[in-house]
Structure formats: structure tokens, C-alpha cells
């Protein structure tokens, strides 16, 4: 994989781990820990969405001239996932484990199918179309994703 695809794919996996951690604490009905874990997951997911929406997608759109194409679909899915994230927060606020499990399962599959499309289709197109600015773009995205992604890619 190219540095761009590796960076973004690693960040997908890191988000998976963070959601799994929140799920584990909810299963144990450890609500303070679950709240903390969900907060961390929400921060990571938001950072990922922001990096894509503010940096990667505009570069893609500028390079391809496509503003209503794949990036529009990805943005719409981000919006749906943000709603599911709010539902998770509400379930934790209400200390409702079953509700959390159902919303988490929905979000998890939504995230996975979204990631699959990005990793199999969008990132390869980005790699092809944004090759000449890849170095600078990867550095910028890594900064936006935070230190965790930057360290994971080098480890």
C-alpha cells in the first residue's frame, strides 16, 4: 500500500479498537470508563472525518473536477455515522446497555462498509490522481489525525 492508503487504513483500524474498548466497558456496565472510551472514539472518528472532509476530499475534487461524485457519498455517510455516534452517546447517558449494543453494531457495520469502499475504491483513486502531492498531503493528514496515526505508520 502507498503511504496515503496506509495512513488512512491504519487510522480506520485504530478507530475500530477505540469502539471495541467502549463496547467492552459497556458490557461490564462500567459507565464512567465507557463514557471516557466513547469520548476517545468520538474524538478519533471526528478527526478522521475532518481530515477527509477538509483536506483529502477537496484535493480529490480539485484534481478530478468531481464534486458530486464519490466524495459527496462519503460525506453523506459521515453525516449518518455522526448521528449514530450521537445515539451511542445518548445510550451511555441513559446507561442503556442493550440500546448501546444495537447502535454500536449498526455503527460498526456502517463504518466497516464505508471503510471498505474508501480503502478499495476511493484511496486508490486518490493515489493515482494526487501522486505528485502525496508527500505533503500525507504529512498534513497525519497532523490532522493526531500523533497516534503518525506513530502507527512508522511503527
Amino acid at each position, binding site marked *: *500500500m502507498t503511504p496515503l*492508503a496506509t495512513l488512512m487504513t491504519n487510522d480506520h*483500524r485504530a478507530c*475500530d*479498537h477505540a469502539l*471495541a*474498548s467502549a*463496547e*467492552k466497558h459497556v*458490557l461490564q456496565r462500567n459507565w464512567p470508563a465507557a463514557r471516557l472510551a466513547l469520548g476517545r472514539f468520538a474524538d478519533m472518528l471526528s478527526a478522521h472525518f475532518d481530515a477527509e472532509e477538509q483536506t483529502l476530499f477537496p484535493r480529490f475534487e480539485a484534481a*478530478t473536477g*468531481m464534486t458530486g*461524485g*464519490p466524495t459527496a*457519498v*462519503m460525506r453523506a455517510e459521515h453525516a*449518518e455515522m455522526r448521528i449514530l455516534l450521537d*445515539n451511542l452517546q445518548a445510550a451511555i447517558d441513559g446507561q442503556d446497555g*442493550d*440500546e448501546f*449494543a*444495537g*447502535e454500536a*453494531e*449498526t455503527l*460498526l*457495520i*456502517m463504518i*466497516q*462498509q464505508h*471503510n*471498505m*469502499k474508501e*480503502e*478499495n*475504491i*476511493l484511496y*486508490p*483513486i486518490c*493515489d*493515482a490522481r494526487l501522486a505528485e502531492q502525496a508527500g505533503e498531503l500525507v504529512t498534513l493528514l497525519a497532523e490532522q489525525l493526531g500523533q497516534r496515526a503518525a506513530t502507527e505508520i512508522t511503527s
Partner: protein
Amino acid sequence: MSSPGAGLGYDATPPFSAPLRFFLSAPLFSAAAGGLLLADPGLLASRWTPGALAIVHLLALGFLLQVMLGALLQILPVVAGASFRAPLRVAGLTHAGLCAGSLALVLGFLTGIPALLQAGGGLLGITLAGFLIAAANAIRHAPGTAAPGQTPRDLRLALGGLLVAAMLGLALTLALTRGWGLPIDFVQQVNLHAGWAMLGWAGILLAATSWVVVPMFHITPAYPVRLTRWWAPLALALLIIWNVGTVSGAPAFALVTGLLLLALAAVFPLATLRQQARTRRSQPDAAFGAFRLAMIALLAGLTALIPATLTDQTHWHVLAGILLLHGGFGGATRAMLYKIVPFLAWLHLTQAGIKAPNVRKLMPEAQARAQLRLHALTLLSLIVAMFIPLAGHLAGALLFVESLWLWWNLASVARIWHKQQAARSAPAAV
């Protein structure tokens, strides 16, 4: 027309009713297999009894092929960017042809009426040819991205496997009804047909799908790249070599390649079990356990094929058939249905701007778990029934109930989806 974004949008995916019709009719064929066994438990005595042939094809065509073609309508656009031009028409014609063809073929086996066998074989041949042409057309117009996964390529290989399996099946129908046999031994031809259907088509399709959905649904790391790059092409190459050995009358060569093929096939379930052991989920769900059991059943089925290859004792073939068809492919398919159907219902409602219940409300975990436990019990009872014929009644009854329960669970999701849609459109109609 293709674009770089093809496959990324929901407009590229078919309406829910396209795959759903396959998923809802499949359990009914499986239930019919249960009914047959309940009526005549002695049919497990040999792979050659008309009843055994009927059951095998109810499970292989009526259940597995139904689910697999329905799933392909959904998967090809999303995974490979290959959208069918008229998904509803393809779904409608394929579904009707598959249901009618499977039914006619099975009735042909049971009654021995040549016209029914010919009608079944002919209908299935035409239906599959139509589906394969539509799929090839969709793939041809897919965008050529350098996607990192091997799933699109392996889906194409599996479709090639389906074509060969279908042609061999059609040739067998003609051999049975008109005596127009290929110049090879009939039993060998049946073995080749089964080999292409089970490995060339179903095995490669399951693997191609698993490369994507096992990490996705069970939150595991990705499969090793070397495995996904080589497994399917190697399996197909070895399958062809085994065919050549079988057809050319070189029994020792065919035996060695056959055993190598079994060993290579076993790599997939072994690798999947290893992936599942590395899941990042804190509490695996019912579908996770069902998929694991399916992989164990595949391994056991492949193991049973070793004595089946080395001896003439037919019960090893029957045991392998039960383990592979019902335990392995049947179990994996059920596990996937429990993930795919509620999610698609949720997705289609959400995309229509309707507030959808979450997937666990659409398909309560307890319901899925209980049904999947009965599936496991059915598998056990089928194996017991091989040794205690009277237990065949129980195995048949369990298969019947388990299949209808699966249908009920899936239909419940469809009912909620339909009700929510109707509730949304009702005020607008006033």
C-alpha cells in the same frame, strides 16, 4: 457508463427487494429438504439414492445458490464497482428461473421423469447463462482501480467456476435423460461436477467474500496478503490439474492431486479460524460463533473426503456432503445472512430518510442465537442419522423447523422494513 465513483454510491446498489427475494425463498428449499428426510430417513444410506440427490440439490441450488446469487447482486457493485444495468430485472428473472429450475430438477430426481430433469436442467442452464452474462457485463463496465484487495478478481474466478459447474451439471442431465454422455466415466463426471460446484464456485466465492466480510463483520485484522493473492488462483489451477488427471485415466496422478486439492482447500477455513481468534470485538456475537462452527465443519468435511477418495465406502461421501453443504456452506451463509439482512434493511430505510430501528432491534440477538443453535443441533442430528437410520426422522424434522425458523427471522426483518416504508409513504398518498 463507468466513472471513478461507480460503486461508491447507493444509487449503484440494487433496491433491497432485489437480493431479499433470494434470501427469503432460500430457507423454504432447505425446509423442503428437511421434509424429504423426515418422510424417508433411509435416503442418507448412499449418495446415489434419488432422495439423496434431491436433498443435495435442494440444499445446493435451492438454498446456497439462491443466497449466493442474491448476495452477488449486492456485493458486485459495492466491492468490485460492478453495477448491474437493470438489477430488478436480473433479480426477477434469475430468481424465477432458479426457483422453477431447482424445483423441476428435484422433482425429476424424485420421480425419475426425464422431462422434469430436462426442464430443470434447461431452466437452470438458461437462468445461469443469463445471470453470468449480466454479471460479466457489469464487471466489464466497472472502473479499473488498483484496488488493494483480491475480492473482485476472486469473484470473477468464482463466476467462472459456476459456469463450468453448470455446464457439467447440464451434461449430466443430458447423460441421464438422453444418454448423451461425455466420453468419461459417469461417476467421475459427477465428481467433477461436485468439485467445480463446491470448490470452483462455492468455495472460491465464500473465500472471496470472506476476504472482505470477515474483517468487516467480525472485526479481525485483514487476511494475510499472500493468502488472498494466491489461494483462489492456486485452488482453481489445482482443480483443473485434478480434472485433467481424472479425465485422462491416470488414477495415481488424480489421487495425488485430489489430496493436494483437499489440503489446499483446508487452508481457507484454517486461516479464517486464525483470523477469528484475533478478533478485536470484546464479546463475539451469535453470527461469529456460527461462522466459526462453519469453518470447523468445512475442515471436518474436507477430512471426510480423504477416506471417500481412498475407498469406495459411500458413507464417507454422505458424511462429507452433510458437513460441507449443511455445516460449512450452510452455516457460513446463515451467519452472513444474520449480518447482511438487518443491515441492508437499516441502510435502505436510512437512505430513504426514514428513522430506522438499529440492527439489533431489527434482528434481536437472542432470536438469531437460538436459531443458530438449532442449526448446529441439526448438523449433529444429520451426522447421527447416518449411523442410526431412525434418527433420520428427527434430523429431517429439525432441518425442517430450523429452516422455517430462519425464514421467520429473516421475514420479520423484511416485515419491519416494509412497514416502516409504508408508514412513510402513507401520508403522502392521502
